[in-house]
Each structure stands twice: as structure tokens, then as C-alpha cells.
């Protein structure tokens, strides 16, 4: 998404832009696939950063303006409500921030002063600066809140929806995510990611972007401090004045034949199971849009010891958005997501891979359902008419990210600059998060290095 946003900006203002995509579908992590005529979204649980029409000065408004997309084109339908579910405690939240505040006041009355202090620190954080200092979010949050359960409950959704670092995150990233999930909120186009991709594809066409599908970059060649050529998968070499890479920071360095440092390889990947149901989830009593659950005493966000860490995860129910005109998805969908170990999945042979997929499909569903009104996984299985599951190796295959690292590298390159003067980075490794963030990253980098210094 970031690369396409950059391409639209540059081409709109008259640059000759060629977009190279190795896959046969655009979108990178935010894409879709078909099995037996049924289309499955990847990536998009929710479009975060959702604000109502008329709310200005937020990331969503910026990308719409910068890409000349009108709000109506995206058909954004708000979430009903979501939930952070820990053993014995639930915090509901929605697109109105007051709901979360009320919930915290009810469950953690003695933490309210601290929570207000945290909100103050968030509002004082200058998130317009590209180069913010790397401060531990755990430290800042612990200075405000004393209850470890509340601290973890607030971290849980933020980590699952965008943290590339194990255990902790930069406070700057905490602020970006806190705003995009809690102050702003969730929405979804009725058609899911396919609509967003169609809108973006049309904008690229209108702007005059030349799009080359199934054509990746094999290597980046340089002379001195400049790129001299891009060697493509088909053996050809092309040249360009400037190159913006959305392949990821370590992945881009590898294309330049520089070995990335191990410390900058993302360790966090996920499995996701998809259950297609013959009825609406609400008929099973499931009303939430997204549930972030944790089933153990402490919440751990790190590469699991086993193939999957089913102690915590995310449950997404795309049916449970407030679709306008009483629209309703034809089939029920329940998706479970959990942290997974890339190397462990990669080491499996074909048979073992299939066996483990089937085992963890059930294991994750069983734990997740403890946080659903259904209680057991059986009622979902009974209603199931199709299932699928993707693993860290699937993510690696389709995004090219080392280690299937969904949120990229733990160290972000906020300036977007590299060791080569005419090679720039955009996307998740530049430090913006989510679909809206990815697009904002592409826009920011295109503006700074492609349009500003003419």
C-alpha cells in the first residue's frame, strides 16, 4: 500500500513512475486470495484510524486528500464495538473514546488519575516529527499506571496491531497506535480489502503509473553512493533517478548485497485461521467486531517457543461492522490470529506442516472461544462450511518479509534514507503502521524526496 501511495503522488505531479510488484496481486500484506471461488482477505481485520466525516487533521483525512480519494469511494463502515478480554476482565471499546474511559473507570477505578496522566503524555507527544527519540513505552506507561493487568490490557491490542518489537515498543509507536485504535477507531469497506485495492489501482491508472506485475527486483546495483541499476527477475536491468523501496529495510539492504544485522530482523509473525460459517456470527451470540484476548496471568508479546502461542490472540468478525443500508455479508466469518514462530514452521516438511496446521487450527480456536459467548469451538465448527489457515511461511512467501515479519523490523528508519543517496524506504519499516499508516508513509517519502527538492 505504501509503494502504491508513493507512486500515485509522484505520477500525479508528472513524474515517470514504474511500480514493480513481484506478486500477481497488488497490496503486499493487505491483499486477498481465492479458494474454490471464495475470496479471502489477508491483512485487513479493520481499517484503523477511522474517524467520522468532518473530523479533520487525522491520518485518514491526510491520505484521502493527498491521494485525491473521496471518503465515499472507500465505503467505510464503522465497527460495532470491540473488546480486550483477559481472564475475568473485559474492557469494551468502540469508535467513541468515552466508552473505553468508562470501562477503565469501572474495572480499575484507582487507576483513573494515572490513566489521565497517560493521556496527557500521549497528547503532548509530537507525532509530526519524523525523528522522534526511542523511549520505552513500558517505562512511560509504568510511570502513569500501577496495575500490571491494565497496563497489559492496553498494550495487547496495540502490540497485535502493529508492534514489530518483542516485549516492549517505542513510546512514539505506542502513541501512533493508541491514537489509531482508541482515539480514532475501526472501520471496514463492505467488500473488504478488494475495494481499497480497486480504488488505489484506479488512482494509479489515472495518475499514469506504469504497473509491472509478476516482476520483482532481483538486486540493486550501485556505483559509489548512487543506484546504477535495478536487476529484475526477468534478467533485464533498468535505471531510475530515484528508487523508493517498500520491500522492507533489511530486505532492501539484502537486495543491495549488504547483509542486514540480525538485531534488525523482525521476529514476530502470526498464524491466522479463517472459519466460514453458514450463518451470521450474531446468530451464535457473537456481537463483537474485534476481540483481543489473553488467557494467561501475564501477556507476553514475543516469538513463541512453540509453533504457535495460543495464550493470546485476536478474533476478528468482519460481519460485525455497522454496514450502511442494512447490508450483510452473505456468509459468517470468524478469524483467529495468534503469534507464531517462523523458523519452526519453515523447518516442517510438507506432511508435518499440514498436520501441525490442523492441530493448531483447533488449539487456537478452542482458546479463542473461551472469550466468545459460544464458549466452545464446537458451535463454530458445526456452522463451518469452509476453513483456511495461513502461517508465517505463507506471509514470507507473499510479502517477501524475512521471517514472515508482519510488522517488519524492530528498528524503524524514520528518515526513509539509506546508504545510497537515491534509494529511499517507505512502508512499515519507516515507522507508520496499519493500512492508513502505510499509505501515509508512502506519501511522506514521496513528498520529501520525490517532489520537494525539485
Amino acid at each position, binding site marked *: 500500500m505504501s509503494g502504491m501511495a508513493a507512486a500515485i503522488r509522484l505520477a*500525479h*505531479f*508528472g513524474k515517470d513512475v514504474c511500480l514493480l510488484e513481484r506478486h500477481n496481486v497488488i497490496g503486499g500484506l493487505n491483499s486477498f486470495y481465492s479458494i474454490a471461488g471464495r475470496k479471502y482477505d489477508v491483512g485487513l481485520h479493520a481499517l484503523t484510524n477511522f474517524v467520522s*466525516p*468532518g473530523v*479533520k*487533521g487525522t491520518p485518514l*483525512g*491526510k491520505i*484521502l*486528500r*493527498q491521494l*485525491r480519494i*473521496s*471518503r465515499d469511494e472507500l465505503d467505510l463502515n464503522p465497527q460495532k464495538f470491540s473488546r480486550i478480554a483477559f481472564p475475568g476482565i473485559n474492557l469494551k471499546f468502540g469508535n467513541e473514546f468515552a466508552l473505553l474511559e468508562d470501562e477503565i473507570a469501572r474495572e480499575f477505578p484507582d487507576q483513573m488519575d494515572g490513566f489521565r496522566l497517560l493521556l496527557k503524555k500521549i497528547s503532548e507527544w509530537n507525532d509530526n516529527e519524523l525523528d522522534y527519540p526511542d523511549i520505552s513505552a513500558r517505562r512511560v506507561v509504568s510511570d502513569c499506571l500501577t496495575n500490571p493487568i491494565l497496563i497489559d490490557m492496553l498494550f495487547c491490542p496495540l502490540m497485535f496491531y502493529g508492534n514489530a518489537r518483542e516485549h516492549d515498543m517505542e513510546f512514539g509507536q505506542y502513541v501512533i497506535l493508541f491514537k489509531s485504535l482508541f482515539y480514532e477507531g475501526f472501520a471496514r469497506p463492505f467488500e473488504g480489502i478488494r475495494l481499497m485495492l480497486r480504488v488505489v489501482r484506479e488512482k494509479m491508472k489515472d495518475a499514469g503509473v506504469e504497473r509491472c506485475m509478476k516482476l520483482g527486483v532481483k538486486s540493486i546495483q550501485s556505483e559509489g553512493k548512487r543506484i546504477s541499476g535495478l536487476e529484475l527477475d526477468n534478467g533485464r536491468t533498468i535505471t531510475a533517478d530515484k528508487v523508493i523501496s517498500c520491500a522492507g529495510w533489511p530486505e532492501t539492504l539484502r537486495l543491495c548485497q549488504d547483509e542486514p544485522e540480525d538485531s534488525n530482523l523482525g521476529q514476530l509473525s502470526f498464524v491466522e485461521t479463517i472459519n466460514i460459517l453458514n450463518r451470521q456470527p450474531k446468530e451464535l451470540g457473537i456481537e463483537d467486531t474485534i476481540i483481543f484476548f489473553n488467557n494467561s496471568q501475564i501477556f507476553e508479546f514475543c516469538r513463541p517457543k512453540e509453533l504457535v502461542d495460543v495464550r493470546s490472540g485476536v478474533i476478528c468478525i468482519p460481519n460485525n461492522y455497522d454496514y450502511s443500508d442494512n447490508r450483510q455479508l452473505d456468509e459468517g466469518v470468524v478469524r483467529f490470529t495468534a503469534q507464531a514462530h517462523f523458523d519452526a514452521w519453515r523447518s516442517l516438511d510438507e506432511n508435518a506442516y499440514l498436520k501441525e496446521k490442523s492441530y493448531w487450527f483447533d488449539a487456537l480456536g478452542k482458546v479463542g472461544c473461551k472469550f466468545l459467548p459460544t464458549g466452545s469451538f464446537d458451535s463454530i465448527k458445526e456452522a463451518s462450511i469452509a476453513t483456511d489457515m495461513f502461517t508465517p511461511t505463507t506471509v514470507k512467501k507473499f510479502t517477501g518479509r524475512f521471517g514472515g515479519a508482519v510488522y517488519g523490523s524492530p528498528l524503524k528508519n524514520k528518515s526513509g534514507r539509506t546508504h545510497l543517496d537515491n534509494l529511499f524506504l517507505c512502508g512499515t519499516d519507516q515507522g507508520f503502521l496499519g493500512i492508513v499508516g502505510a499509505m501515509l508513509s508512502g*506519501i511522506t517519502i514521496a*513528498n520529501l524526496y520525490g*517532489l*520537494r527538492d525539485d
Partner: protein
Amino acid sequence: MTKQILNTMTKDGIKSIVLKIIAEIAPDEDLSNITPEVRLRDQLELDSMDFLDIVMELRKQYGIEVPEADYQELASLESCANYLEPKFAALQGS
């Protein structure tokens, strides 16, 4: 933009050009009651990205160059017209 319109470019004409560009960039803003003398920023929700876009649309659509040092000249509709008038006039000569 046809040559003829450029030839008759008045300050009001320039103001409406700038308003048209703002409408393209920020279709969600109400432009019906803009006071020309008051800073656009004080009447509309426009950030630095939006101002950069006004500059770039002027270049794209009319071939007008606004160097970064002069961006403050675009603060209000009135100052836009004053600043851009000689630039539009220069286009006719070229």
C-alpha cells in the same frame, strides 16, 4: 487553461483558481464563505501538506513556480492574488 483566459487574468480570477485548487485538494472543506483578507489556515483545516499541494497544483496546472521561501505569500486569498498576479502576467508574455 486557454490563452484567452490567461490574458484576462484578474486578481479575482486568480482567487477563483486558488479556490478551485483547494476544492480539489480538500473537497471536505466548505469554501463558500472565505474572507480573502484572512489567513486560509484560520478559516480552513489546511496543513503544510495541503499548502505544498497548492504550490504543486499551480505548477502542474499553470506552470507557475513558487519557491519554498515564498510559501508564506500564499497565506490568504488576497496575498495569493497579489503574489501570483505578476507570475500569471509573465506567462502571457512567454
